[in-house]
């Protein structure tokens, strides 16, 4: 259990490094490009030279994608990725933020603006001319898999319509939808509500805002702190009352649990209560397995599955695989690939697009081989940006495991992504 009294900033863990180079052997970005020397060099090694008030020793840390493969393989629990993230924030403080990164950090604002007139926004952003312009003006790669705004309304538009018909129950659970479900993929939220209600839970959707991750990963710590504090005000009281808060976006839940408080040094009692209340939805379902109805329909399908990088930081194993394995006829094949490459907003950046595609190659090959051998129609991944990148890299459609679970109860159509 997290303990604020024993918590140390990630930089302190540099002394745990024995220079074994295991992290360097597995870092997918260092493999893909010479621009990044690898986790040991950018992390614990450069950290020795990072002093307050001194210029940064090495700018290459900006090429770390944050995938955390290094943290996962390191035998000594060195917090390499966190060290890199904080070093990047220091760079941002020193050199300022490019307009492009400001844009990418404002996922929620983009979501809101686009949702006013989603068809127009989709056309405006997704035509070849504008993509070239955005590429040239802002440095957002013209090929990168930007999402499309939902043209059937936002998740909360739907929730307001669903509210009078919602399941009322003594068992209650709070749902954190995040920006992607809100503006781009409301069907993920609908599938989640369908499953949670099928489990007999009344779903609460409180007011909430962006978790702040895109800003954190672009080194905009101040702005991210504001978002985090807003959420703390809105969700904190529910957490204090003992409600579990589940989310379908592995990155949002991670940010609320750990990433924001750790990177931003927020360690009050209320932040800890929030941390302890937040669950990845499959982590929560696995924990509530005895409440999971077994009225599955037979599904006869092979699903190539990629555990998103954020699970490496949740450190809860692969809960969606554990749960999907309960569905009769479903065979989940794990990718064993390190990263899809996109790493949040990394692969959107013009100078990083090619690196991201190279990093994703081992995953794309796996998906395509599965398609060839098992005639799979869909692959699955819990994280939205990863799904967009996988679709971009393979041409095969990707689904959230919650969509598959909802479909296994006959509550959801995987093809059209609509609730039944």
């Amino acid at each position, binding site marked *: *259990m997290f303990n604020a009294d024993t918590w140390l900033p990630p930089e302190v863990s540099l002394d745990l490094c024995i220079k074994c*180079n*295991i992290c360097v052997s597995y870092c997918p970005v*260092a493999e893909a490009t010479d621009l990044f020397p690898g986790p040991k060099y950018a992390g614990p090694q450069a950290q020795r030279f990072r002093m307050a008030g001194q210029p940064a020793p090495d700018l290459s840390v900006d090429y770390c994608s944050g995938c955390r493969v290094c943290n*996962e393989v390191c*035998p000594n*629990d060195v917090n390499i990725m966190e060290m890199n993230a904080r070093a990047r924030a220091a760079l941002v403080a020193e050199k300022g933020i490019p307009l492009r990164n400001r844009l990418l950090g404002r996922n929620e604002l983009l979501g809101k603006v686009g949702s006013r007139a989603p068809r127009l926004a989709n056309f405006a952003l997704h035509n070849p001319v504008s993509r070239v312009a955005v590429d040239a003006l802002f440095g957002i790669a013209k090929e990168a898999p930007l999402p499309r705004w939902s043209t059937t309304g936002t998740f909360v538009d739907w929730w307001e319509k669903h509210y009078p018909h919602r399941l009322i129950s003594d068992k209650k659970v709070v749902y954190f939808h995040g920006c992607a479900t809100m503006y781009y993929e409301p069907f993920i939220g609908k599938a989640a509500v369908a499953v949670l209600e099928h489990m007999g839970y009344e779903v609460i959707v409180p007011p909430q805002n962006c978790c702040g991750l895109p800003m954190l990963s672009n080194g905009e710590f101040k702005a991210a702190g504001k978002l985090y504090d807003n959420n703390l005000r809105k969700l904190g009281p529910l957490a204090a009352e003992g409600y579990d808060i589940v989310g379908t976006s592995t990155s949002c839940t*991670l940010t609320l649990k750990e990433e924001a408080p750790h990177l931003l040094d927020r360690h009050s009692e209320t932040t800890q209560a929030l941390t302890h209340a937040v669950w990845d939805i499959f982590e929560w379902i696995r924990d509530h397995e005895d409440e999971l109805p077994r009225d599955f329909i037979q599904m006869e399908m092979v699903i190539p599955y990629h555990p998103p990088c954020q699970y490496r930081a949740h450190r809860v194993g*692969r809960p969606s695989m554990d749960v999907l394995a309960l569905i009769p006829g479903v065979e989940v094949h794990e990718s064993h690939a390190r990263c899809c490459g996109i790493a949040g907003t990394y692969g959107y950046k013009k100078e990083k697009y090619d690196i991201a595609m190279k990093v994703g190659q081992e995953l794309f090959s796996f998906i395509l081989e599965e398609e060839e051998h098992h005639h799979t129609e869909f692959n699955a991944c819990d994280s939205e940006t990863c799904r967009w990148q996988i679709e971009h890299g393979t041409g095969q459609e990707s689904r959230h495991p919650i969509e598959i679970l909802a479909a296994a109860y006959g509550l959801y159509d995987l093809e059209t992504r609509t609730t039944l």
Partner: protein
Amino acid sequence: MTDLLIIGAGLSGLLAGVWARRQGLRTRIAATGLGATHWHAGTIDALGYLPGEDAPVRSPFAALTRLTAARPGHPYALTGEAGLREALAAFRTLLEKLGLPYGGAANPDENLLLPSPAGAPRPVYLAPAAQLAGDMSRPEPYLVVGFQALRDFYPTVIAENLTKLGFRARAEFLPIELITDRRDFSTIDLARAMDSADLSRLANALKRVAAPGERIGLPAILGLRRHGQILAALSEAVGAPIFEIPTLPPSVPGLRLTTVLREHFERDLHGRLDLGMTVTDFHAEAGRVTWVASRASARPVRHRARRFLLATGGILGGGFHSEPRGRVWETIFDLPLTAPQKRSQWFRPDFLAPEGHPVFRGGVRVGPDFRPLTLAGEPAFENLWAAGNLLADSDPISERSLEGVAIATARAAVTSLINTDV
């Protein structure tokens, strides 16, 4: 329900996972990270030196009685000679099947002597096929070939030291562009580049520098995925025996070994391996471990299983923790350790003391069935076993027994836990 939860993904944890899975146990491995294979030479060292002796051991089996006389609690005293032999043979069969064959001396009782990264003789019981032509009992003179700009491999040092030992040896350097045009590289990067490199350019360059009758030692970078094919194709194209010499870390032969075991466990045998999971706590009822808990982002994750195998590698692997004054403890179950609990007793004054340093010999004492013991000599828990280098009384550094102990004890622990009703 998981039949067996293994804690640790080093050589002993991975092998135990493979062997348990092959016996049909639903097996999971949880570990902080990957293990020591990545900074070792990828060889299987069973017993290279006896405590206090300078000369390398010729036959690890013949030396066993003297080892266990000096160290009666040594893991090899528990496995016995038959157990050690059987486990090494099983390892060899397994790796053959996984396409990364290992070989040994012509006399299967004896060690090989292979050149170390400094050109010194290194007693090894089994070596990857790629290192076998380095065998010091072979007659061919050595040509050690390095690459300009490759840090971590020193052909001149190796050749000079081999010459001092009485071998005919010389060094040559080739341009790194024969393998890669990248600017910076580790040995792993070079091995990956070799997977797709045009071998004929390298082969031609090697032919130009090699004299007839020489064997050619290269840094251990001959491919990752296509290692076997690359070794065979290069030897054939050059027309000379080619072998790998291990480099400074990261160790490509160690990475190959970990990769084949891990992929076999996860993909062929459908075992579950979770890294980034540091186990910190446990719960026991009526003398049985019911679950262990690992550190996670918001709340610990509980892992329930029928049986647990502790393979956390001791002081080198992170299974033990210490504080500056010298207390050393086992981090999960707080099992009693034989390690000296005062810092002044950890080390001998001489860094290279042939007896080794006491702190590296300290560890968990187990019974003949590989269950950890309490101070009273009883099994600490009915369903907890231990294997690998956290065991008491072996000193992997001075004995050169790291892999032998890992393999033999993993095998023995799996046999014991399968045959015990829990």
